[in-house]
């Protein structure tokens, strides 16, 4: 049955639940509204189109796109292994992978510093190879990937678990080797989950601040992403900070809306035996 086909179906929601739901919505929406009200609209365009703002926005979009690609390349295999395989310490690995979700980003930055920094675990080796990551755009992408990867893994693992492995088993008995099963069955079935995971990762990368500041530094055009630019602008020009914040909110809203637009549309062909995960339904 297509969702929403019965417009006035009975729902058993107590009044107090509705009331608290309204409060919850206000908690989220009101601060955004307050910010919009604070925007200096007469100077809005010059504020957000200043060279430093545009540079920061471009850098943010570029690095977030790169980290999203990295999240997909690395996160898909990890989610598949976590969802399908069974091995010792699997639960521990899952908890560790999810850690960046709850870790203060600055802690992530410190951890990255001690891994990829000049004095870090891998830093010396990388240095010998002529790779210097600190203070580079690569560092920004690494920081964003670190904090965004769990979003992709969680949402994809949920989708994989919901879709189950029965289609994969059927495909194997039809003669498909694991590579073909993965490409032609596993991935297409969890595409909605993968898409929503990728969007969440992109959004998280876009908002990344603490780890970037700690690990990558802040230099216009190289490492100063939009959130860092906003934080810096706030020191001298709060109006510019507010205007840029609005830009960031707008980009985030656009991205999330794109991903959650008609979640059913992305799942045509879900018969009674299909159970694709709700988009992003398994975060946290």
């Amino acid at each position: 049955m297509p969702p929403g086909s019965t417009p006035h179906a009975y729902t058993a929601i107590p009044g107090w639940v509705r009331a608290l739901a309204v409060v919850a919505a206000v908690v989220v929406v009101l601060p955004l509204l307050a910010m919009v009200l604070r925007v200096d609209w007469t100077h809005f365009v010059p504020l957000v189109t200043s060279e430093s703002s545009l540079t920061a926005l471009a850098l943010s979009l570029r690095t977030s796109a790169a980290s999203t690609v990295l999240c997909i390349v690395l996160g898909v295999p990890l989610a598949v292994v976590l969802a399908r395989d069974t091995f010792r310490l699997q639960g521990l690995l899952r908890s560790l992978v999810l850690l960046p979700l709850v870790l203060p980003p600055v802690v992530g930055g410190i951890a990255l510093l001690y891994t990829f920094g000049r004095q870090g675990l891998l830093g010396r080796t990388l240095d010998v190879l002529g790779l210097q990551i600190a203070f580079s755009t690569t560092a920004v992408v690494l920081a964003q990937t670190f904090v965004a990867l769990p979003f992709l893994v969680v949402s994809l693992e949920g989708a994989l678990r919901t879709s189950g492995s029965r289609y994969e088993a059927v495909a194997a008995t039809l003669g498909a080797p694991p590579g073909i099963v993965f490409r032609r069955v596993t991935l297409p079935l969890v595409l909605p989950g993968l898409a929503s995971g990728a969007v969440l990762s992109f959004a998280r990368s876009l908002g990344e601040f603490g780890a970037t500041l700690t690990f990558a530094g802040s230099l216009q055009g190289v490492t100063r992403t939009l959130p860092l630019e906003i934080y810096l602008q706030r020191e001298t020009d709060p109006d510019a900070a507010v205007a840029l914040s609005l830009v960031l909110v707008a980009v985030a809203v656009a991205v999330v809306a794109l991903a959650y637009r008609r979640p059913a549309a992305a799942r045509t062909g879900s018969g009674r035996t299909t159970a694709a995960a709700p988009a992003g339904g398994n975060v946290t």
Partner: protein
Amino acid sequence: MTLSYQAVVAGRGFDVALTVRPGETVAVMGPNGAGKSTLLSSIAGLLRPDSGRAELNGRTLFRLGHEAGGGKQAWTPPHLRGTALLAQEPLLFPHLNAADNVAFGPRSTGTGKHAAKERAVRWLAEVGVEDLAGRRPAQLSGGQAQRVAVARALAADPALLLLDEPLAALDIHSAPLLRRLFKRVLAGRQAIIVTHDVLDALMLADRVVILEDGKVAEEGPTREVLERPRSRFAAGLAGLNFVPGVLDAAGVRTAGGLEISGHAEELEPGPGEPDLPPTPGSPGVAVFPPSAVSVFLDDAHGSPRNSFPVTITDLEPHGDQVRVRAGGLAADITPAASADLALVPGMTVHFVVKAAAVSVYGT
């Protein structure tokens, strides 16, 4: 072209040996949890037994545990086994249309796109749904989807077709049509069909294997097993009363001391079984149809009749008769007789059956 199979899955109390000859279709039946799915999964390679060995047409499917002896263990992954699995649900890939679903097997094994498509169309025509080639699974009815699933399994050109209750999820209109389709495509094909329906076994299978508690309870040509069941499950399938005990001069004596007289059956020995006449003292069964049982309020002894007191547990309609269940046995009587006797559950009555209607044979 033979499947020889023997495997143990200790965790499930599963220990089964089975042979499927070339071109033979074997029905596997048994109560829930008897190990039917374990059997299919381990043949398909989706479940790894603890020990055992299996070969299909000379190719080793697995050789595990002590069965491997000192030699090396062997395990062929599912995609190299040639054992297509068709389940109760069609499990068509929801993102592919019917034709692409059917072409999936050939494409996966290296057939070109065009050739695979042609093969898909041919098989869709074979199962009578060529006009649905472009439809997505969500746009197919249950019966149509299962037909496509059959075409998909056959298009993979399996050496052994595994069918796991393929008709169980279908409505009463689709099931007969699909059964006819299976009758056609399984003819001369090596296949194992797990089913709960005795009709499937009779129509589709050359031989039936009854599994109980992870073991083979009996096996043989379908008709013979149903006519002379040697397991309670098979007797239930055939709708026969089944009383196990020990053979004696007159018939069978149960563990509870009940004596049931009947006529001894000459049994054809199964393949590999010793050709021995039933000997008194050896285990045997008394089998008789519910229609041969009369119900009396008193002990009405008239020889040669068997009469035993039983307590009614259930009364249920059975065709145009009333089936009286009591003491693990069943009697079919007319509704008028049931009303005359004022039968209700909990009543103690006598089941009476003529010795001539009771078959007795060793097991």
